[in-house]
């Protein structure tokens, strides 16, 4: 990889971490409403899969994949406004956190029905296939979401038609408080892929190199028309399920163990070993991401809140004009 690419990847990792950190702080300052779901510690997964996508590829992120929004090209200002529930957000205040996507750059908003976006991704991939477009759809889901029927139905269909969709399972070992051993009976979610007729791969989700490599293979496979892949990234979230979760169901030792595998930390080691000027890079990147996030916050705070009657808008593309509605 080129130095430019290496630096770019570092910048993404740092931007996501800064953005999420700021949101966590804002939440504790009482500036945000609703649930906030930190993905701190999992940055390598979204960066690894999204860094080289085209604008006309599609991603289907989950609530913890704020990073995917940024890397796919969402405007940080609008993303922050979205989280603030303001009119300039993607959902125009209609739904919270990451539930509104920027469809113009192929980001489908998350919903709370975990796994429900996977059939949608499969349907979209079906269209790519029949129209012979070499576009891909990437559907993110947690290992907890993998228990939902929709996930099975989507993968099954994708396997039948060899669809250009990549299923990325972010296994951070806990679905809220539920550990893996209560969630599924296999060791790896990826083991299920064989049941659908395609390849499953397990990868160290904190190692950006591994993620990039695996992601690239899967994306190439999909673009070529060779069908789907299920990639399971083992990773860890430092915070609780939401900012209101103390996560007492995990031991401090476990958390520390994973913190010592921090993806940004690991990437900095890599940059250093490549003999880049790590101090300068770190400093310059800090300045840049801090500025970007501050601008985003300023924009979001200045963005107007929607008025009550706006709740009635955007329901129908073709509203019917009948009396007394």
């Amino acid at each position, binding site marked *: 990889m080129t130095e430019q690419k290496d630096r770019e990847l570092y910048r993404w990792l740092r931007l996501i971490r800064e953005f999420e950190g700021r949101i966590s702080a804002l939440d504790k300052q009482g500036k945000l409403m609703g649930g906030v779901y930190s993905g701190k510690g999992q940055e390598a997964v979204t960066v690894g899969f999204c860094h080289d996508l085209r604008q006309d590829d599609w991603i289907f992120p989950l609530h913890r994949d704020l990073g995917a929004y940024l890397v796919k090209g969402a405007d940080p200002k609008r993303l922050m406004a979205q989280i603030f529930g303001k009119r300039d957000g993607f959902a125009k205040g209609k739904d919270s956190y990451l539930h509104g996507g920027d469809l113009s750059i192929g980001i489908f908003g998350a919903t709370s029905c975990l796994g429900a976006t996977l059939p949608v991704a499969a349907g*979209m991939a079906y269209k790519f296939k029949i129209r012979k477009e070499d576009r891909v759809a990437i559907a993110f889901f947690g290992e907890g979401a993998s228990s939902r029927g929709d996930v099975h*139905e989507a993968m099954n269909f994708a396997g039948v038609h060899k669809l250009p969709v990549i299923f990325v399972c972010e296994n951070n070992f806990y679905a809220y408080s539920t550990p893996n051993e209560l969630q599924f009976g296999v060791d790896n979610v990826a083991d299920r892929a064989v049941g659908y007729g395609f390849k499953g791969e397990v990868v160290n989700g904190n190692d950006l190199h591994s993620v990039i490599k695996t992601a690239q293979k899967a994306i190439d496979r999909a673009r070529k028309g060779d069908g789907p892949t299920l990639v399971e990234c083992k990773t860890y979230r430092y915070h609780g399920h939401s900012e209101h979760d103390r996560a007492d169901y995990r031991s401090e030792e476990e958390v520390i163990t994973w913190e010592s595998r921090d993806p940004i930390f690991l990437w900095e080691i890599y940059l250093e070993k490549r003999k880049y000027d790590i101090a300068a890079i770190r400093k310059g990147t800090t300045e840049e991401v801090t500025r970007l996030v501050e601008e985003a916050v300023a924009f979001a705070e200045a963005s107007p809140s929607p008025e009550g009657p706006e709740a009635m808008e955007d329901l129908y593309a073709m509203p019917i004009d009948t009396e007394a509605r």
Partner: protein
Amino acid sequence: MLVTYIEAIRQAMDEELGRDRNVMLMGEDVGVLGGAFKASAGLQEKHGADRVVDMPISESLIVGAGIGLAVQGMRPILEMQFIDFIACGFDQIVNTAATLRYRHGGQTACPIVIRGPSGGGVHGGLYHSQNPEAWFCHVPGLKVVAPATAYDAKGLLKSAIRDDDPVIYFEHKFLYRRIKEEIPAEEYLVPIGKAALRKEGRDLTVITYGSPVHAVMKAARDMAAEVDIEVIDLRTLLPIDWSTVKASAQKTGKVLIVHEARLTGGIGGEVAARIAQDCFEELDGPVMRLAARDVHTPFAPAMEDYVLPNQEKVTEAIRKLAAY
């Protein structure tokens, strides 16, 4: 040309598939078999297996994939082999399709049609007789239609396919081959959101939709000497054509709502409440409803007949209200 109700549906799909290459049909056994009721006979052969797709038994996927296709500009028709199975795709319908445009601040539309055979009277038992339209009439972002005639079946399905919003289309299986009508050879559409005045009358209004429309019309003919009935076929259940409903209620002052779906929580309650509220001073009798009893539709014939509205119950209900 003379067509049955199900032929009218087939024609609508065939014509729209031919007219717009973005239209698709996805469902269980719709392709090679032509559909469990033959609603899509010949369509895969004609329009290709890419566009008329045999899906696995995965209603949630069928709807979800349809949404993904719709975001990409396709116009998929998603068949539920029996409308009873729509419950398996309920989450995708109410939480993904109905919210798609809203939670994306208007960035996109969701032009899907979910259709399937509903209704009883065919010894179908619990899972082949349901009329669950009321669940969906409670969900903003959806449109719900229920044609009672072959003419409307074709015209409404075409309108639904061309509509950019998610439309749930309840076709009544009892009517599939039992009604035959002359319909125009030229293309026509029936607008969503407009009720049909099937018969003008002075004394009493019956508001209905779906299969019971025919029993109501028969009662209107048979009872013409004793009461002059006005019949309104709602056709669209969400949004309801309130101006037609209210004008009729104000004209006759007596309203009976008839639907095959169950009484409690059925659409009749919404219509009755609206009439009581907006037409109170014009009412010359209580707003009444005739509907299925609040129980699952049973299999044994005597029980099914006991539960569902029928010609006799329609006549009796009309007579009682007329006499008030």
